[in-house]
Structures are given as C-alpha cells and as structure tokens.
C-alpha cells in the first residue's frame, strides 16, 4: 500500500506530477469537485494543529469526499493506551485514507505498516512533515518557475524545524541549489543533515548568524518559528525565540524577486508590516498546501484502487 511518510518516498517525477495536478486543480477546480465522492479521509491528529488538519479537511471536501477523525489525543483511544498499530488497523475499517499527526517520531510509519489504506504523514514530532514540503514546492514552482539554480536561505530554528529538514531533502535532488543556513548557534542544522544530505551530495551551503548579510544573495528566504513545544527547557526557548525578526528594513538589500516563505503559524518572526510586500508568499503557501493535499489524496486513492 502506497503511503507518504517522508518526502523522499516520492521521486522527482512523482512530485512534478503532483505539482502539475495541483496547477490543473487551480485552473479547473470544478473538474475535481466530485473525484472523491463517497470516500472518507480520517484525520488522526494526536497533537494539536489548526492549519494542517483544516487544510486536509478542506482538500477532501473540495474533492467531494467526507472527513472523520479527531483533533487531539485525549479524544481518541490513545488516551486509553491503544497502540498506533491498533488504531491504524481499526481506522482502516472505516475510512479510505488516513492523515496522521503524532508527537512521536515514526508513528505514521508504524501506522502505514499496519493500515490497509494509504497513510499520509501530517507531521511526526520534529521529524518529517512532507505535506508542508509539498506546499513549499508548489509555492517555489509557481513563484520561480523552477527548482534548479536557486539560492535558498533557511532562517530561524534549523535544529528542530522539521519543515526545514524535509525541504532540504526535497530540493537537494535538483541541479545547482545552494543553501544559506541562518540560525543562532544553538539552533543550527543538525550535523547529520549536513553530513548525510548536503556534504554527501556535494551541495554547497554556508552557515551564518547574520540574516542581513546573507539577504542580497537569496532567491528564497524560508523563515521558521522557534517552537516552544520542541524545547524541554522553557529558559532556552525564551532566550532564543526572538533571534530573528524579519522587518521591511531588513529587506532593503533583498532581491526584487525574493520569495519570502514561512510554514506558519508565525509568532513574531515576520513583522506584519512585511505582509503587504509583494515578495511575501506565506499565505499563498497555505493555499498551495490545500491544492497539493488534494493532488496527493487523489494520487494515493488512485494507486490504492479506491477511486
């Protein structure tokens, strides 16, 4: 059974296929409005999430399908001690496809190994968040028209930021991509990502703590939030949370074609004054995420022979 647990589960060709489908959905939404009629998406959210869950739900409704599920672990059988494997087997009896978010890393992989329907990883702890990466990729493609020949600045929490790790993995498969890693010392990209992904594939990158200095070279600036829920120690969180705040002043030396992205929600790392800048793409990312989830749901249901 085909699932999406890690962005690398899909080839570059398959990602392009999803992007093409998403672009077609944007152009002709009515052609897709009944594709999943009579089908059910189960949203199993063991960890709170507003945008990802609602994005999945909106995606399924716009395909003409239905949604069942829960939005926190307390309202599921997990609170009674049920295993992820048993939950996946049970939900397979009710739904056609699962979108799962779980605070523990690897939980969606366990679900996929036990479910008889496709499983989509909607975020597992600080590990992977492949559908956010799908949203990011569609945004880059629609704004830049390409994935190659890009200088991509990643700024903020590069240590725990799962969206950053997934995006690096995804973009590393394209030609002539260069990364600028902008973070405080304590939140630098983990060495295994640098070693296993960047160095092993010979992908150029530089590390800096200075956002403004890096700015002029960037085609894409991907801002991230310092996430309170990833810290064991509140003091560390408070010390690091305001490390980078993007303001119109800091964008003075940026390219006219810069694409400013953020997986959202933001706290204060992008000033609201930036929202009116035509280079701000983070709300487009949200919309693109819904279209890519529609394309993904369709692809997995088709491969499972359910539509």
């Amino acid at each position: 059974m085909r699932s999406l647990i890690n962005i690398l589960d899909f080839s570059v060709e398959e990602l392009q296929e999803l992007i093409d489908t998403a672009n077609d959905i944007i152009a002709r939404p009515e052609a897709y409005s009944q594709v999943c009629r009579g089908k059910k998406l189960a949203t199993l959210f063991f960890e709170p999430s507003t945008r990802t869950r609602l994005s999945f739900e909106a995606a399924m409704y716009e395909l003409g399908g239905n949604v069942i599920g829960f939005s926190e672990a307390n309202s599921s059988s997990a609170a009674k001690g049920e295993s992820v494997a048993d939950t996946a087997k049970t939900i397979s009896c009710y739904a056609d496809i699962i979108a799962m978010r779980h605070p523990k890393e690897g939980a969606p992989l366990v679900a996929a190994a036990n479910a008889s329907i496709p499983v989509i990883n909607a975020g597992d702890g600080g590990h992977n968040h492949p559908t956010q990466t799908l949203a990011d990729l569609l945004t880059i493609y629609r704004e830049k028209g390409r994935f190659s020949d890009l200088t991509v600045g990643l700024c903020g929490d590069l240590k725990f930021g799962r969206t950053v790790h997934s995006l690096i993995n995804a973009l590393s498969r394209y030609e002539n991509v260069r990364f600028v890693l902008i973070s405080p010392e304590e939140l630098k990209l983990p060495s295994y990502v640098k070693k296993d992904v960047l160095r092993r594939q010979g992908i150029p990158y530089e590390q800096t703590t200075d956002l403004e200095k890096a700015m002029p070279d960037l085609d894409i600036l991907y801002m991230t939030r310092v996430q309170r829920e990833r810290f064991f120690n509140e003091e560390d969180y408070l010390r690091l949370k305001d490390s980078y705040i993007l303001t119109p002043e800091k964008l003075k030396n940026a390219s006219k074609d810069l694409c400013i992205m953020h997986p959202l929600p933001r706290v204060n790392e992008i000033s609201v004054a930036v929202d009116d800048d035509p280079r701000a793409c983070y709300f487009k990312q949200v919309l693109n995420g819904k279209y890519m989830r529609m394309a993904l749901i369709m692809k997995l249901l088709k491969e499972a022979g359910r539509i």
Partner: protein
Amino acid sequence: MNIDAIQNGIVLDHITAGRGMKLYDLLGLEKLNCSVAIIKNVNSKKQGKKDIIKIDEEIPINLDVIGYVDPGVIVNIIRDGQLVEKRSIEMPETLTNVIFCRNPRCITSVEQELDHVFKLTDRVNKVYRCLYCETKAP
C-alpha cells in the same frame, strides 16, 4: 596462556581488539551454560592485536550482531575437533532488537511492543539509523 581446544563449538576470530566484550554482551553469551572464553589482545600478524571468543557448544549465533559490531570477524565452526566451516561476515542491512533507540521523541519510547529496527544508511562510515526517527545508532 592456555585455553583448551574445543571439540564442538564456535570460534569467533579476528575480533578487533577491545570489541570482544561488546560482542559477548550483545550476543547474550552470559546466558550460556557451556564454557565461553574471551581472549583479549592476542598477537595477530594481520591486526597487530585481536580478541577471540571460543564457545564450547554449537549454538545459533546472530550473525547480524557480529556484522554490526565488527564485520571483519571470522566465524569458525568446529565439529569433532575439526574446522568444518569458516564464515566471513557482512554488515547487515537491518538490525532488529539488537540495539535500542534512545531518542525520547521516538515512537519506540512509548510503544513497548514495537521492534527496535535500525537500517544501514552509510556503509562506508558504518552508520545505522532508527527506522522510525532516523536517530543514529549509539
């Protein structure tokens, strides 16, 4: 130093010096009732120094454990005092319940019945990562 030759059993030879005890532990040899000898820092033409483990019984050995700890080890099977089989060991692609993930954020930290599975992700540098959370093996 004299260690009796074994009649029927297994000799793990060419263990990198210092890894004999780790192999002993991970293979669970302390649970055996038969004689087991760990010989440390034996002079070796090939390795300079090496460890050797002699097991005085032909028990089932988890070759994946040996491949993970020390893929250069040679497993010698002895029957009736004769060497009947000499096996070299490869690094296994997967390790199941040999080593355990210590990442508190990993699903294996809360679901006790899950197998702890590690996959070989870098053969050159001998790197294994947890199947679930991708944490590097200790």
